[in-house]
C-alpha cells in the first residue's frame, strides 16, 4: 500500500523565520518518486521538486531545500527566511512506477509579516 503522511496540518511562522514541512511516506516498491507541490490561494498546484528513490542527495533551490532520507522514509521541505509569498498549502506526493500519485493531506503554511 502507498501512503503519504503530512502530520502538520497548519503552521504559522513570522516572516524571516525558517520552517520545515514534514513528509513521511510508505511504500513497498523499491523504485518510486516523491514530489512537493505548492498550492497558493489562487488554487492551482505548482510543481516544486521531484526526487527518485535512488537519489538521496539533498537539494537546494534558493530559499528552498529538501532532505530525502530513505532510512526514515521522509522527504522534508525547508524554507529558509520565509516570506509572506510562501503562504500556501504544501502537498507531498508519492508515485511508484505505476498508475497514480498518492498525495498527503497537505500542510497549510501562514507567514505573518
Amino acid at each position, binding site marked *: 500500500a502507498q501512503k503519504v503522511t503530512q502530520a502538520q496540518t497548519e503552521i504559522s511562522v513570522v516572516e524571516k523565520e525558517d520552517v520545515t514541512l514534514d513528509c513521511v511516506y510508505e511504500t513497498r516498491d523499491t523504485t518510486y518518486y516523491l514530489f512537493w507541490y505548492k498550492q497558493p490561494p*489562487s*488554487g492551482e498546484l505548482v*510543481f516544486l521538486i521531484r526526487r*527518485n528513490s535512488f537519489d538521496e542527495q539533498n537539494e537546494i533551490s534558493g530559499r528552498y531545500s529538501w532532505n530525502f532520507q530513505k532510512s526514515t522514509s521522509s522527504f522534508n521541505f525547508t524554507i529558509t527566511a520565509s516570506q509572506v509569498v510562501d503562504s500556501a498549502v504544501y502537498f507531498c506526493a508519492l508515485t511508484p512506477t505505476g498508475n*497514480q*500519485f498518492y498525495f498527503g*493531506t497537505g500542510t497549510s503554511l501562514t507567514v505573518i509579516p
Partner: protein
Amino acid sequence: DVKVTQSSRYLVKRTGEKVFLECVQDMDHENMFWYRQDPGLGLRLIYFSYDVKMKEKGDIPEGYSVSREKKERFSLILESASTNQTSMYLCASSSTGAIYNEQFFGPGTRLTVL
C-alpha cells in the same frame, strides 16, 4: 507556457442535476486526471485516462463518470449531483512514457451542490 484550463472556477448546482466539468490541456499530454480536494483529506483521485477513449477508476469513482473523446479534453460528469459532492475539483495532465513525470494542474472548480 504549459496550460491546463477548467471550464469554470465556481459552479452552483442543485441536487439531482447532471453536472459537467471540463478540462483542456494544450501540452499534448497523454495522461489526464481528475481529483477532488477536501479539507483534511488532501487530493483524492476520481478517474484518470492514459489515452483517448480510455479511462481507469481512481480511489473514489462512485457517483462520477468521465469522457475523453479528444486527447486534449477530459470531462468529469456527475450523473446526479448530491450535496456530498460539494468540493474543489482539480484536473491535471502529464506526459506519458514515465508515469512519474510531474502532473500539471488546472486552477480548480469549486462546486457547490444545494
